[in-house]
């Protein structure tokens, strides 16, 4: 249905006053059959979005040809026919909804086609039904969640009767619940016969695809079924991608000979049945008895400091009500209490709307609690005459999508902004900024660039540096890795670990990615309905799988696998959150202890 042959695409970038030409696509090929589900996988900047925009004539190739249902996209008279055939859903939910109500937005496409009013109404109704939003048809888009907005966008494409839908990173800005919502709709559309092209850097989203196209540096690096693509982890890593956690766990188990299977294992239920088949030989008495002892290591980093030292930040019975005294009054936080010690990393989890962001804004004094207290180094920040602006530089807050909040002319100015506000001289501020930029790994050549000319990952690091340059002793990070590919994400977390170790900065990490929380936090707080429902080490909190899930949060994928194995009868001392620990535990429970 779609055939793209060796397409090249270049675009101009400005660096200072000089113009450069960058190649986004360098001879990419793509063949899509009617009804197929294709996933295009690749790191940030691999050209996958540029490729997608060629499929419905938002871009034209500099070289090569694109045919959609036999029509050449370069021929202007095919334009509307092609755009009707191939619809597109974009990444940012807010920037693609035009209507001020759900149904108005869905009607936008059919209205452009100048259809009869009756037809438009029918199409709007059936499209909204297909994405499950018919009851919200009169709602304003501002009142919808991210996942709902993306479903509105999908309905808008459905109403145009497109046979093929291109999804350009539709889940990059969504939380896990919304992500699942959107992916479910995509799967249903595929079953109903639509051709689907899904662009993403989340490897766990593509396992259901018929075929995966792996993009690297503007070219197709590999193409094949998920089984084929995931059987070559080295190839994937070279393209900046990683294996989904379940597949990685299966790889380790295979390597250690605990299970045998020809291809990669992509599905958790498949892995579970494999483990259970191989574990049948094990006699029950060989299983280690469950022990209630909590784990001794591995998070050594903060252990020595906790308990002895006075906490940096003490939160006591904090309550916060939004829009107090109006019809919209909502209790967002209720009786929140916890301590933050030097050098520790606290993971804050919970569904969207559980109050995580509000808590973060209370912690650095941007919002003032109704009752309760916050003590910084033993002193109440609500005391009369307390210098809140001083306090804010001690408790730094890096916002969600912080790259959109850079505002100075040059990178260096932006990072030096905070120190200058703190009263440092021009000279000192500059020095501090340079040190911080070196810490986050931004080269000197970028110091005088405009922040707008940097790549997404660089911008994120500059924004981080802007807060770090004020030398905070507590750093709150709100979704620092959202929308980043695995390589850039690892870099960001590398920086976070470094400042923890080198400066003893305490970290409060807000994230929807349970793997990140399990991997980096010493302590996890689960926030739900405005209160802390679970608190403890990641191992302890995530072991309580049912409880975590009952609050709408989730556990790391490997923990979920272990939990289900335990349901099947394998006995573990505790549920692990790391891939290697989980592999070791599963092997020992299977009676195949030893090699790790």
């Amino acid at each position: 249905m779609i055939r793209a042959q060796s397409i090249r695409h270049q675009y101009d970038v400005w660096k200072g006053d000089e113009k450069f030409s960058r190649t986004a696509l360098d001879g990419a090929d793509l063949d899509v059959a009617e009804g197929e589900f294709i996933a295009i996988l690749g790191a940030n900047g691999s050209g996958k979005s540029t490729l997608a925009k060629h499929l419905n004539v938002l871009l034209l190739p500099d070289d090569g040809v694109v045919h959609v249902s036999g029509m050449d996209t370069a021929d202007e008279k095919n334009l509307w026919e092609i755009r009707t055939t191939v619809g597109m859903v974009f990444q940012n939910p807010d920037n693609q909804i035009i209507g001020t109500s759900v149904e108005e937005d869905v009607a936008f496409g059919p209205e452009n086609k100048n259809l009869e009013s009756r037809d438009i109404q029918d199409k709007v109704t059936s499209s909204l039904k297909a994405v499950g939003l018919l009851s919200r048809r009169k709602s304003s888009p501002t009142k919808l969640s991210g996942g709902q907005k993306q479903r509105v966008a999908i309905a808008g494409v459905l109403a145009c009767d497109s046979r093929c839908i291109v999804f350009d990173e539709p889940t990059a800005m969504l939380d896990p619940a919304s992500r699942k919502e959107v992916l479910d709709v995509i799967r249903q559309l595929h079953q109903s016969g639509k051709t689907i092209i899904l662009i993403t850097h989340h490897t766990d989203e593509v396992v259901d695809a018929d075929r995966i196209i792996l993009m690297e540096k503007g070219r197709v690096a590999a193409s094949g079924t998920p089984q084929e693509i995931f059987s070559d982890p080295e190839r994937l890593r070279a393209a900046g991608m990683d294996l989904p956690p379940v597949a990685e766990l299966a790889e380790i188990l295979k390597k250690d000979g605990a299970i045998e299977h020809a291809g990669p294992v992509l599905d958790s239920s498949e892995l579970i049945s494999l483990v259970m088949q191989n574990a049948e030989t094990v006699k029950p008495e060989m299983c280690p008895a469950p022990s209630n002892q909590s784990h001794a290591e591995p998070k050594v980093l903060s252990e020595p400091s906790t308990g002895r030292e006075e906490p940096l930040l003490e939160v006591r019975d904090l309550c916060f009500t939004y829009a107090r005294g109006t019809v919209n009054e909502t209790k967002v936080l209720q009786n929140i209490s916890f301590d933050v010690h030097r050098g520790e990393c606290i993971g804050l989890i919970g569904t969207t709307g559980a109050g995580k962001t509000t808590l973060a804004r209370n912690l650095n004094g941007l919002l003032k609690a109704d009752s309760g207290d916050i003590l910084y180094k033993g002193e109440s920040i609500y005391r009369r005459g307390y210098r809140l602006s001083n306090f804010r530089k001690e408790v730094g807050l890096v916002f969600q999508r912080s790259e959109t909040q850079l505002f100075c002319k040059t990178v260096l100015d932006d990072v030096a902004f905070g120190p200058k506000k703190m009263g440092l001289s021009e000279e000192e501020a500059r020095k501090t900024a340079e040190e911080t930029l070196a810490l986050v790994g931004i080269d000197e050549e970028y110091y005088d660039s405009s922040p707008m000319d940097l790549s997404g990952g660089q911008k994120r690091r500059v924004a981080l540096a802007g807060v770090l340059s004020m030398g905070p002793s507590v750093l709150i990070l709100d979704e620092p890795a959202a929308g980043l590919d695995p390589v850039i994400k690892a870099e960001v977390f590398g920086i976070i670990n470094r400042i923890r170790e080198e400066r003893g900065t305490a970290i409060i990490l807000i994230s929807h990615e349970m793997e990140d929380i399990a991997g980096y936090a010493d302590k996890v707080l689960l926030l739900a309905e405005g209160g802390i429902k679970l608190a403890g080490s990641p191992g302890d909190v995530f072991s309580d799988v049912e409880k975590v899930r009952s609050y709408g949060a989730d556990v790391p994928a490997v923990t979920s696998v272990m939990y289900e194995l335990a349901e099947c009868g394998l006995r573990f001392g505790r549920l692990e959150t790391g891939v290697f620990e989980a592999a070791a535990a599963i092997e020992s429970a299977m009676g195949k202890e030893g090699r790790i």
Partner: protein
Amino acid sequence: MRDITIGQYYPVDSIIHSLDPRTKLMSVFLYIVALFLVKNPVWYAAFLIIALAEFRCARVPFSYFLKGLKAIIVLLIFTFVFRTLATPGEPLLSFWGFEATREGLIKGISLTSRIALMIVEASLLSYTTTPKEMSDGLARACSPLKRIGLPVDEMSIMIMIAFRFIPVMLEEANDLMDAQASRGVEFENCSIFVKMKNIFALVMPLFIGSIERTSDLAMAMEARGYSTGQARSKMFPLEYSSHDKTAYIFSILLLVLAIAGRIE
């Protein structure tokens, strides 16, 4: 800024909600014209009663009636005081060198009532008409202007997009202010000049954000088959019903009465 009522649609079904937006726009226009025609302050009581009756018909709670006024309370007080004191005439009382006059009091009352009633009527329009209906109505009402080359349809799309993104931009501005406040910028405990300067610093990132948004949005619109100058149909085309006729008759009657009141 939270008191801005424009664009705050109040979603209930009522006779007023179901009226054609052109009817509502025209009625509000005629109401305002009539309001400025009358001279005798007793008329304002009549206009107030009409406005209250309309709110009743629209099933919009009375608190919303006041909400629209709250935003301009300072303006109203200022107008009243200024008018009362600055009009020469028969003195009522004087203090600190100012003199309130009888004529001033009457003028103050009329001007304040006019502004207040005008705002109340305009907010009722926005409570009962979605931005989409409003822009459709405007476009249809202005469609004769197409003949002299005005891009009426494009303008109506622009108005709709503006309505769509006002709340998004406000949220973005709030986030930016918070981000800057946590990097040491003061928005509260500082002089008005510093405050203005700091708010002005928000303009740049907001502007860049909107440029990015604009190009995204343009792409999304193109992808769904939009281009300028094409013929577009409507999901709910505007049609007059019998209620509209009644509403027009009432509005014209009001205007005629006001004119008659002025002549006598």
